[in-house]
C-alpha cells in the first residue's frame, strides 16, 4: 500500500470512529426509549442476588412501561435497560460501567449488586457525571466520599442492627447491655459493626467480644465457645449468608444460650427454610418486608408487589428485588419533575426526591443515602416445623411482639 492509500484509510477510519462516537453520544434516549445501563452479577459469587436485583429492575420497567411510561415534555417514553454481566468482579464492573457510558452512550445508570461493586462503579459514573440510582450498595463509605451523582434508595449499612441494640437496652430496663459481636471483614459487615459501636456508646453498653471473621471462614466454633464462656446479653453476627447459616448451625449444635441473637442476611440465606426450628427467635435486619404499609400507584402495597412478583418469577421477592424495583420508580419521578433529559437537570431533580413507594419513603441525604426509611427487624418464629419471618420493630409495623429472652436450648423442644 502506498502512502496516499494509507493516509486515505486512516482518514476514513477516523471519520467512521468520529461518527460512531457522535451517534452513540445521543443514545441516551432512542426514539421512545430512555436507555438505562447496569452492570450486574449474573455469574460468580453474587449471581443469586444479582438475579434478584435484575428481576426487580425488570419488573419495574415492565410495570412503568405498561402504565403509560415516563412523560417528559408532553411526550411518553418507555424505559429500557442495557445489562452486562460483571461476573461479581469489581474491576470488571468498573470496565463495564465505562463501556456503558462511552460505547453505548448511556446517560443514566442503575446500580450493581453489593457494596463492593457499587464502590467500584461510583468513581466512573462520577467522572462522567452520570446520575446513578443504586439499590444494593449500603456501605457507609459510599455516602461519605462526597459523590454528587450517586443516589441510594436503601438505608446505609451502619443502621442495620442499631435498632437491635436499642431493643436489647429497652428490655434491660434502659441500662447498657453486654454485647458479643462477630463480623466478617468486608466493607458491608464492618459498617454494620461501626453502627453497633455507635449504638453501644450511645446506650452505655459494653462490647465484650469483638471478633472479625475472615472471608473464607465457615467455622465459628471458637467465637461461640467464647460467647458461651462470657454470657453476653446480645450476640450480633454479620457475615452475609455464610455467616448467618454458620452461626445458626453452630449455635444450635453447641447449645449456646444467649438472650438475644441479631443478624443480617437471614432472608437471603433462607435461614428459616434451611435451618427450620433451629433458627427460631433469631432477629434479622431487613430493608423491607412485604407487610409494611407503604403504598404507591404502580405496585400498590408490599403485599401486592410480593404477589405479582411471585406470579412473574415464581418466588417470594427478597428485599433486594423490592429495593431494585424502587430505583426505577425514583428515576421515573425524577425525569418527570426535571421534564428534561439533561443529565444535570435529572441529577438536580433526584436531589429533591421526596416520595413514597411500596418499598418505603425515599428522600436522599447529602451523601446520597436514603434518610426517609427506617430499617426493620423481623424475628423468625415457628409453628411446628413451619417457620416464617415476623416484623417486630419498629413498633409501627410490628405484626408480632418481640420475643425476649430466647429460651434456653435445654427448654427448647
Amino acid at each position, binding site marked *: 500500500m502506498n502512502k496516499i492509500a494509507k493516509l486515505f484509510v486512516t482518514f476514513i477510519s477516523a471519520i467512521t470512529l468520529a461518527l460512531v462516537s457522535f451517534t452513540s453520544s445521543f443514545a441516551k434516549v432512542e426514539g421512545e426509549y430512555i436507555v438505562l445501563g447496569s452492570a450486574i452479577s449474573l*455469574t*460468580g*459469587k*453474587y*449471581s*443469586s*442476588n444479582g438475579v434478584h436485583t435484575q428481576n426487580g429492575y425488570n419488573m419495574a420497567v415492565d410495570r412503568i412501561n405498561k402504565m403509560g411510561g415516563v412523560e417528559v415534555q408532553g411526550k411518553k417514553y418507555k424505559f429500557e435497560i442495557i445489562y452486562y454481566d460483571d461476573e*461479581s468482579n469489581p474491576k470488571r464492573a468498573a470496565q463495564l460501567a465505562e463501556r456503558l457510558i462511552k460505547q453505548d452512550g448511556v446517560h443514566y445508570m442503575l446500580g450493581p449488586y453489593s457494596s463492593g461493586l457499587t464502590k467500584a462503579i461510583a468513581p466512573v459514573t462520577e467522572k462522567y457525571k452520570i446520575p446513578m440510582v443504586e439499590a444494593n450498595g449500603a456501605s457507609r463509605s459510599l455516602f461519605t466520599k462526597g459523590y454528587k451523582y450517586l443516589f441510594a434508595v436503601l438505608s446505609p449499612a451502619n443502621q442495620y442492627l442499631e435498632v437491635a441494640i436499642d431493643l436489647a437496652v429497652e428490655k434491660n430496663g434502659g441500662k447498657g447491655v453486654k454485647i458479643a459481636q*462477630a463480623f466478617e*471483614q468486608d466493607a458491608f459487615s464492618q459498617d454494620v459493626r461501626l453502627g453497633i459501636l455507635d449504638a453501644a456508646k450511645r446506650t452505655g453498653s459494653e462490647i*465484650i*467480644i*469483638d*471478633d*472479625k*471473621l*475472615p472471608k*473464607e*471462614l*465457615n*467455622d*465459628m*466454633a*471458637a*467465637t461461640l*465457645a*467464647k460467647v*458461651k*464462656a*462470657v454470657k453476653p446479653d446480645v450476640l450480633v453476627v454479620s457475615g*452475609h*449468608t*455464610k455467616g448467618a*447459616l*454458620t452461626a445458626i*448451625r*453452630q449455635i444450635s*449444635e*453447641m*447449645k449456646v444460650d444467649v438472650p438475644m441473637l441479631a443478624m443480617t442476611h437471614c432472608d*437471603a*440465606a*433462607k435461614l428459616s427454610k*434451611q*435451618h*427450620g426450628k433451629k433458627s427460631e427467635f433469631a432477629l434479622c435486619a431487613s430493608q423491607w418486608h412485604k407487610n409494611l404499609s407503604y403504598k404507591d400507584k404502580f405496585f400498590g402495597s408490599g403485599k401486592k408487589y410480593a404477589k405479582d412478583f411471585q406470579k412473574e418469577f415464581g418466588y417470594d421477592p427478597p428485599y433486594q428485588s423490592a429495593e431494585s424495583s424502587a430505583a426505577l420508580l425514583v428515576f421515573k419521578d425524577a425525569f418527570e419533575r426535571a421534564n428534561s433529559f439533561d443529565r444535570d437537570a435529572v441529577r438536580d431533580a433526584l436531589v429533591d426526591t421526596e416520595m413514597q413507594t411500596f418499598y418505603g419513603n425515599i428522600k436522599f441525604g447529602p451523601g446520597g443515602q436514603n434518610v426517609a426509611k427506617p430499617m426493620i427487624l423481623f424475628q423468625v418464629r415457628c409453628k411446628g416445623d413451619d417457620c416464617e419471618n415476623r416484623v417486630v420493630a419498629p413498633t409501627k409495623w410490628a405484626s408480632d411482639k418481640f420475643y425476649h429472652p430466647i429460651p434456653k436450648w435445654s427448654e427448647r423442644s
Partner: protein
Amino acid sequence: MDFLIFKAPMLMVQASLDGILLGILFALIAYGMALQWGVMNIINIAQGDLVILGGYIAYTIYLWGIHPAWGVIISPIIMFFVGWALYKLVINKVVDRDLFISILATFGIAIVFQQLMNFIFGADVVVAQSEYGTTMLFDNSVTLPNSKIFSAFISVLYAIALVIYMRKSKLGRAIRATAQNARAAKILGVDTEKVYAATFGINAALCGIAGALISITLTLHPYVGLPYTVRSFMIVIVAGLGNLPAVAVSGMGLGLFEEFADYILGTEFRIGAVFLLLVLILVYRRFKLSRKREYLK
C-alpha cells in the same frame, strides 16, 4: 479478651477437641493429596474444589429426601468417576511434565469447577441437616456436635480401609510400585496409565467423602474450596509424601493450631496464621521434597 482461653480451662478442652475433630477431616483430604502427589508428582490445586463438589453431591441427595450421611458412600463413588474422567481429559497430558505445568492445569480445573458448581447449584450458601444432636461433656461446658464426631469417625474408617487396600490389593500394590519407580513398574507389566487414572480417582473419592462430611458439619459454597487445598498442601508438606501416620498427626496438629490461633491471635488471623505457618514451613524445609524423592510405602 484475647487470652480468655488461659483463664477458662474448659475453653482449652473445647478448643482442643474442636481442633482434633476438624484436623482429622483435613487429614483425610491431605491423604488424598499425598497419594496422588506421591504417585503422579502432581500438586492438585483443585483438591478443595473436588471436596466442595463432593459436598454438593451429598447436599443433592439430601434435597431428594435421603439422609445426607449416605453421602459418604454415594459421593465417593460418583467422585471416583469424576476423578477418572478428569485424569483422562486433562491430567494425563500433564502428568510427565514439570510441576509448574500441573499446578497451572489444576488451577484451571479449579476455576472451571467453581464456575460449574456456581452454575449448577447456584451461588447461595447451603447446609445439609444431619440432626445428629450434640454430646455434652463436663456439665454442658464443653459441647461437641455429634456430626463432627461422626465425620472424624468416618474419616478414620476410610483411611484405615484405604491403607489396608493399598497393602493387600493388586491395584494397591501397583500404585505403590508406580510411586516407587514408574518406569520400572511399567517394564514389569504394570499398566501405569491405568494406575494413574485409578490414583486420581481414589483421590477424588476421598475428596468426595470429605465433602459429604463438610456438608453436614460446616457450610458449602462454590468458592470455598481454596482453604481446603491450602490446608491439605500444608499437611502434606509437613508430613512428607510417604508417611501416612504423619499425615494424620500433622492434620490434627493443624486443626489444633487453627483453633488456638483463633483464641490467642483473634478470629481474623485464623486463616492468616495457617498461611503464615505454611510460609515458615516451606522456608524451613526449603523444598527438601524436590531434592529427595519420597514415595508412598
